[in-house]
C-alpha cells in the first residue's frame, strides 16, 4: 500500500484519540463486520467545535483519516465542519490510494453524524 509520509505520521501519532464524557454530539459509522468502525465525539461552544475526539477499529488509512479530520476541524465553526468532504481529508493527508478513499469518507461522514446529533439535541442553535 502506497501511503504518504503524512499518512504514516498521523497513523503513528494520531491526534485527538479518545472520548468526551457528556459530549454535545456523537457520531458512529461503519461496522466491525466490514472491518472499519469510527466514533467521533464533539464539544460545541458558540457554534464552534471546541473539542473533538475519535476512536476507530480500522486500518492505517482509517486511523490517519480520523486523526487528520479531527485536527482540521478543531476550533472551526459547525458550518465549516459540515462542509468537510472526504477529498478534503485525503488531500490534507497528501492523498490516499484509490482503494482507501472510503476511509477518509468514513471520517467525514462520522463527523457529520456527530454534528447532526448535536443539532438534533439543540434545535434552537442554527449555525
Amino acid at each position, binding site marked *: 500500500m502506497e501511503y504518504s509520509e503524512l499518512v504514516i505520521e498521523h497513523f503513528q501519532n494520531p491526534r485527538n484519540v479518545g472520548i468526551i464524557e457528556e459530549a454535545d454530539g456523537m457520531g458512529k459509522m461503519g461496522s466491525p*463486520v*466490514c472491518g472499519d468502525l469510527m*466514533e467521533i465525539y464533539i464539544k460545541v461552544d458558540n457554534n464552534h467545535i471546541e473539542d473533538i475526539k475519535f*476512536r*476507530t*477499529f480500522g*486500518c*492505517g488509512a482509517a*486511523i490517519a483519516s480520523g486523526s487528520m479530520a479531527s485536527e482540521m476541524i478543531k476550533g472551526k465553526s459547525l458550518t465549516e465542519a459540515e462542509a468537510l468532504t472526504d477529498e478534503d481529508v485525503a488531500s490534507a493527508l497528501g492523498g490516499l490510494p484509490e482503494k*482507501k478513499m472510503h476511509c477518509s469518507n468514513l471520517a467525514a461522514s462520522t463527523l457529520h453524524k456527530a454534528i447532526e446529533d448535536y443539532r438534533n439535541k439543540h434545535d434552537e442553535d442554527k449555525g
Partner: protein
Amino acid sequence: MEERTRTIYLDHAATTAVDPRVVEAMLPYFTEHYGNASSIYSLGRETHKAVDEARRTVADILGCKPEEVIFTSCGSESDNLALRGVSLTQREAGKGHHIITSPIEHHAIGHTCEQLEKHFGFEVTYVPVDQHGVVDPDEIGRAIRDDTVLISIMYANNEMGTIEPIAEIGEIAREKGIPFHTDAVQAGGTLDLNVDRLNVDLLSLSAHKFYGPKGVGVLYVRSGTPLLPTQTGGGHERNRRAGTENVPYIVGLATALRLAYDHAESNNQRIAALRDRLIDEITAEIPDVQLTGHPTHRLPNNASFVFKYIEGEAMLLNLDLVGVCAASGSACTTGESEPSFVLTAMNVPPEIAHGSLRLTVGRENTDADVDYVMSVLPGIVQKLRMMSPLYAAR
C-alpha cells in the same frame, strides 16, 4: 524499544530469498550454457542434460519417474494445468463434469474452479472444513458422485498452516478411480513429497517458497492420468506443456529442492521451535488472541493468529515501522471487500477475522528475532486497542 536497522522477515509463506548456492548453480546457464535444450549441437545437448538432471533430482525427491515431472512457470500454472488438463479430458471421455475441492484452497485452485463452473459447464462441490480448517476424508467420500472427474485438496494451507490428511483422501480417491491432485506449494521444501505415500496423481510445487527463484514450478502427473495440455506449441515436456525450457530456473528449482530436503529434518525442528516460541509467548502475553489452524498438525513455520478488537493492516503497518515483515488476511490488507475466506470457512466471525496476523518463520530467523517481535508486538496491539471502540465496549 530497541533501535533496529535490519529487517526481520517473517513472511516466508509469501516468498523466500533465493539461496546463494542456488544462484551460483543457475548462473552458468545464462551466458555460458545458453543453448536451446532442443538443439542438435553440443551446446544444446549440454543444456538438455542439465534439464534432465534437474528432472531426475525432482523425481528422486517425489519418488516418481522423471517423465512424470513437468516444469512450469509457477505454482499457479501447475494448478491450472492440473485442474483444466484433467477435467476437460475426463469430460471429453464422457466421465462426467463434477469436481470436488475445499473452500480454503489458494485462488489458483478456487478461481480456476469458479471459471470451470461458470464457463465450462462443470459443477464444483466445496467440502466443508472444521474450525481448524481440516478436511474430513469421509466428507470427500460422501461428496463423490458417479460423474466426479477430479478431486483437488491442498497439502497445507498458506494462511493458517493446517496440514490436510492427503494420504487418507488419496486412498478414497484411488478406490473410486478418481484422479487426485494436491496443491503442495506451501508444503514443498518442508513436508514429505513422496507421491506414493501421499496417494496422489498430481502435485503442484513452486520454487520461490523453498529458497528458489520466482518464475518456476513443477506439476507431477502420474503416468496414465489423462491430461489435456493448457499451453500448446512445440512438443516440450512430452507434449504436455509447450515453451522453451527455462533452463537456469529449472536448475535453480532442482538445486533449491535438493538443498531443502537434504536438511529438512533439522531445519524443520529449528524452525518449529521458533514458531512454538511465537505461539506460546504471544498467546501467554497478549490477551484476547487466538491461534488459527490446527494446534499441532500445522506447518513448522506457521504462527497465525486473530487478535480481537483491532484490524490487521494497522498491525502490519506498525510492525513494518519497526522492521518486521508479516502478513494478514484482513480486507484492508488484501484489498478485497471481505476478510479472509479461509478464516470465514473456519467459522471465524468477520470482525475477528479482520484482526488476523500471520508470522511465517524461515531459515535465517533466530531466537533474537522472536525476542524482538515479543518486545514490540504487545505494545502495538495495546496501542491499537486503546483506539478501538470495540475494545472499550468489551
